[in-house]
């Protein structure tokens, strides 16, 4: 889907009055933690007709250092039917004196193709400028007209980390009388003026300090001030639309973008019907059809005009056996229909950030589509762009968020599955034998499910050298690791993955005088401690929790005994629990047990250090060593 363009289109411009761009006038507080300061970012949108929107913008950015260059953002994306009437950049030195002017014809015109897309007619004009001094200021003006009013620009007063904002102004005016909606988010604590205009609305905000990145932070969009706007009647690449609710919007998508695109050649219909002939269970039928799609298609993205939003027809996908998310989802839907299983094309904002479609602001949102198959009470989900994702496995890509299910009766916002902390489970069992007093030979079996399955199942098809690389970095605390036999079992029905790995390590034990030091956690050390933050500013978010359990049998070297026994450890915090014990099982054999539960949740910012302490404790115990001394003979 090309929905992501909407955010890029939001970076626009306007005529400016005579301004003072002297760097020294920037308020001090805006310079702190900033690589650049937006002096003025102003966009005025005028909707002249349902299919004509004029966008004028002026953006003035002072770049303080090299890292700030990325914030200039002097570019203009455009589609075939857009017209860019003005494009100009003026460069000022730190005293605010003009040093260079760059006209539209000197912008580099190039394909706006993005990763994974084979062809697209989106293009972009990019400013090419080599800074000759820091700080410097660029004033960038842009004016364009687009027929695609379905994507009314949204406005972010703060657009990224490490950039302060002196002045940010946005107006949205509808001259043609179409009703529009707007929603303000996270305005609290900001000086943003809202003015109602006779046929529109205007916002203006001043002096907003830069944000610093923090680990385990809420998503940037969840705490910065922004405005969303949407027209109730709109236009998209030749197609008119009308919607005020998610239901309407879904209905429009169904009628205008999906309807009639699920026709299949008779031969294919018969083929899939044959495929499921002797199956009664609708879940099994779904599985069979999905497997057919996985085995016979691949992901290729081609975006042309309305094709950026409308799937290529099921018949075309059937012929070439490739498509993008829209094409492959629609194709799977058509195949399921041919065997009597109803399914729904579903719009989602995919990605590990768990971004939901905004329940109370229906508009074009999301960046991906997948398929919903309601089977009785259960919602089954199919990721049609993947050749390997099991039936109903959402993983971190589409879990726990609001998505828009498109039915012939209209759209329906539904929530996808939440993985509980315990469901994201890994169990490692191992047996390790110490040979020649310092070396280790071991066997482990790692069982994974939930999102831990997500992180691993792709390994099934890895080559030996990829396995070498992977395990040597996963167990990078094991010196001189030699990988032995590796076996994988991927149970895609139960969505469980098992790795069986043999390995050996030379000099795993270290010498300390006459004693040996042995770290009993051979194969699941969780050593990651989140970065220190001097003054935590935002709440702590653990998006997904997990549970690890470990059990290792350790055969001690001949002639050595553990010097003294460690007491079992149990740590309980609000963020999770950790327990670990190492006990003799029989002469010469020790049993190591470990359990780590990290809970998902939101915690106040004051808890950050406590969470770090918890992870430090885990890291310390996971690195624990025991001393083996020579038996007195």
């Amino acid at each position, binding site marked *: 889907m090309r929905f992501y363009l909407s955010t890029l289109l939001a970076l626009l411009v306007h005529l400016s009055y005579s301004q003072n761009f002297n760097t020294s006038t920037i308020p001090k507080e805006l310079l702190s933690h900033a690589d650049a300061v937006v002096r003025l970012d102003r966009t005025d949108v005028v909707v002249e007709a349902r299919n004509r929107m004029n966008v004028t913008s002026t953006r003035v950015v002072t770049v303080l250092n090299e890292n700030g260059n990325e914030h200039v953002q002097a570019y203009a994306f455009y589609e075939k039917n857009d017209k860019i009437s003005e494009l100009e950049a003026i460069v000022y030195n730190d005293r605010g004196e003009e040093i260079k002017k760059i006209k539209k014809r000197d912008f580099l015109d190039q*394909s706006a193709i993005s990763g994974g897309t084979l062809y697209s007619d989106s293009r972009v004009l990019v400013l090419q400028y080599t800074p000759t001094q820091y700080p410097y200021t660029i004033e960038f003006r842009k004016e364009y007209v687009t027929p695609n009013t379905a994507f009314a620009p949204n406005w972010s007063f703060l657009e990224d980390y490490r950039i302060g904002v002196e002045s940010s102004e946005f107006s949205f005016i509808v001259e043609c009388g179409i009703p529009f909606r707007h929603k303000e988010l996270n305005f609290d604590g900001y000086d943003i003026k809202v003015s109602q205009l006779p046929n529109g609305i205007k916002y203006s905000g001043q002096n907003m300090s830069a944000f610093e990145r923090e680990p385990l932070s809420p998503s940037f969009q969840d705490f910065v001030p922004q405005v969303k706007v949407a027209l109730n009647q709109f236009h998209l690449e030749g197609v008119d639309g009308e919607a005020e609710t998610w239901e309407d919007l879904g209905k429009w998508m169904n009628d205008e973008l999906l309807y009639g695109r699920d026709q299949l050649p008779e031969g294919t219909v018969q083929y899939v019907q044959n495929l499921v002939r002797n199956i009664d269970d609708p879940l099994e039928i779904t599985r069979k059809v999905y497997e057919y799609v996985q085995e016979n298609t691949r992901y290729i993205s081609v975006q042309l005009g309305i094709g950026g939003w409308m799937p290529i027809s099921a018949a075309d996908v059937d012929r070439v056996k490739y498509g993008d998310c829209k094409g492959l989802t629609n194709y799977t839907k058509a195949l399921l229909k041919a065997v009597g299983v109803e399914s729904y094309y579903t719009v989602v904002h995919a990605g590990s950030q768990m971004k939901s479609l905004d329940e109370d602001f229906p508009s074009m949102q999301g960046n991906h589509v997948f398929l919903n198959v309601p089977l009785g009470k259960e919602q089954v989900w199919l990721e049609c762009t993947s050749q390997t994702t099991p039936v109903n496995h959402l993983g971190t890509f589409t879990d726990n968020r609001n998505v828009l299910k498109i039915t012939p009766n209209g759209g329906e916002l539904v929530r996808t599955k939440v993985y509980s902390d315990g469901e994201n489970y890994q169990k490692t069992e191992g047996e390790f034998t110490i040979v020649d007093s310092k070396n280790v030979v071991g066997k482990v079996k790692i069982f994974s499910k939930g999102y831990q399955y997500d992180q691993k199942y792709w390994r099934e098809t890895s080559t030996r050298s990829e396995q070498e690389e992977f395990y040597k970095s996963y167990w990078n605390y094991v010196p001189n690791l030699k990988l032995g036999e590796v076996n994988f079992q991927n149970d895609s029905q139960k969505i469980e993955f098992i790795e069986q790995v043999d390995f050996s390590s030379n000099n795993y034990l270290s010498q300390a005088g006459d004693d040996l030091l042995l770290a009993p956690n051979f194969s699941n050390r969780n050593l990651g401690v989140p970065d220190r933050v001097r003054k935590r500013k935002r709440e702590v978010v653990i998006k997904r929790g997990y549970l690890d359990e470990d059990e290792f049998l350790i055969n001690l070297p001949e002639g050595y005994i553990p010097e003294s026994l460690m007491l079992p450890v149990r740590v309980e915090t609000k963020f999770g629990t950790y327990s670990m014990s190492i006990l003799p099982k029989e002469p010469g054999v020790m049993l190591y047990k470990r359990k780590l539960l990290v809970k998902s949740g939101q915690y106040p910012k004051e808890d950050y250090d406590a969470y770090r302490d918890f992870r430090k404790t885990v890291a310390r115990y996971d690195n624990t060593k025991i001393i083996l001394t020579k038996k007195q003979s």
Partner: protein
Amino acid sequence: MRLNLTIITLLVMQLAIANDIKFGKVSKEEVEQTQHTLYAEAKAAILYKNEWVRYNYQYETGWSQIREVHYRIKIYNKEGFDWATLQVPLYAGSGNEESISAVKGYTFNMDNGKVVSTKLKNDGVFTEKMNKYRNMASITMPEVKEGSVLDIEYKLVSPMFWNIDEFKMQYDIPVDEVNVRLDVPEYFIFKQYSKGFHKIGFSQTKENRSIEIAYRSSDEMGKLGRTTHKRGTLEFFENVYHVSAKALPALLDEKFTNNIDNYRTAIKFELASTRFPNKPFENYSRTWEDVAKSIYDYDDFGSELKKENYFDNDIDQLIAGLNSNTEKANVIFEYVRSKMNWNGYTGVGCSEGVKKAFKEGTGNVADINLMLTAMMRYAGLDANPVLVSTRSHGIPLFPTSEGFNYVITAVELEGTMVLYDATEKNSYPNVLPMRALNWFGRLIREDGSSSEVNLMPREKSQDVIMMSVDINTDGSISGKYRQQYTANNAFVFRNNYSAGSPESYLEGLEKKYSNLEISEYEIQNVENLSKPIVQSFSYRSESAFDEISGKLYLSPLLHLATKVNPFKAAKREFPVDYGYPWEDKYLININLPEGYMVESVPEPIVVLLPEGIGQFRYNISATGNTINARVETVFNSSVVPAFLYGDLKEFYSHIVEKEAEKIILVKS
């Protein structure tokens, strides 16, 4: 005679095999195959690749080059699906646009024991204008699944008859067989250069050819004001080259490799001369001397180098009162480096021209460093430009002007040559950016003569850390840390440091050492490039050692210990390339807590790499209540050849092992 006969037979056989493979005719075995016979891990393979390059002549447009390409690709599994899409870059410069045509394709699959095919249609072929200079043709095949065999054919027409793109024989998937045929009219004489570790078969024959030429003639004094259409035949012979290779493994990148393309098996035909009837013989064949000379003769090189009037007053002022050449050189370098800003473009010729670049303060590498050379010459110094091929540009196979894409400045000072590159704000005499540290450069003198220059830094880049640590009875340690970077290490540090604000650097440092609570941070010589970077801070760390049954165990290197061997792969094909020689030196002083004494310290060791390439020295001693450790890792050479990889890996495993060893302290 017998010998000749054998050669001919061989050639005929080879041709016979080549002719065996026809577009659109695949064998059942090929489609049924489930894994590669030699390389079972291959996700896909090129079963066959054929390229035929020939020439065409038209009266209006002159010579053009036609390249017909046939790929037969086998997809073994889903990871190989990327190979179901071919992308062909097309040059699109003014007047020299390459075009693609006659794209044909079939996908073959097994269906109930039979081979079935699906034809590529137009909707699988795209040509996109990427930018002013480049178009991209994409071909994506239908009905692709695991096991599919793809036959793809296309024709590329190029007006640039003088340039034949390299024939690549190796990719990131195995290549079973590749054949190249090249038909070159007698008027063009090409030389061949091959590279890579795999055998390439080569043969050459002659064939006659005639071309029918239609042309319009409006001569006869134009009396009738009418053009007549005429026909003629051009008779000539052609040199026909056959190049082939078989069973080539995938070419896969490895860490610490310079440019993987340097090792790719490939052959390049380079135009050596032209010999047209009624025209003088033109020789393009060159030595590196010739190449340097011809670059020197470019308008955007030699003439730019001669311009002085745009800077003469500035330089006069700058060097007034300076006596030594070294001072003059450094002052001028400093001037250009701070005034000029590199726009990121490489090239041996100026893009803006030195005057405009000087005025605007930006330019490509030639604008900047030719300006620097010119100013130094103006100041009476023995300065010359040095042509360089950057790392990403690779190592040229043969003397060609395309072999260089970068230029720096060399100055003879007190009998030694000093290299300068003013494109980077933090570069320093003899400290060049990594991109320029590649192979040899070529120095061109004012008379056009030239000689080879070794670009490898002689001086080792140092990282010297001094630490003094107190072990506290509460289980923490407090330390003082002082670190010094020289040469390229300092260059890299300064680039990172000056890209952002000092405050964000410090935050990054705290994140990097997140177990250390850092205070009293100080940094020196960020701007003073003639001195090493010195950063120092105090720190406290809570869990730097273990207490087990009343004894304290700690690694003398503390957080500096190398915990992981950077070399994990069992074997290696290509040399390890660090870019410059280096030396890490740690001097650590540990003060024992009250009431403790040393039970044991690790044994000192020395580990040497063969051929004096590198060494690791670990020295430790305890006196009274202090422990002194001195640990040094030195690489005298920036490159470690692949055959010493085993030694290098073992070298590092000794380092990891030794640095993991602990000091044991007991209550006294």
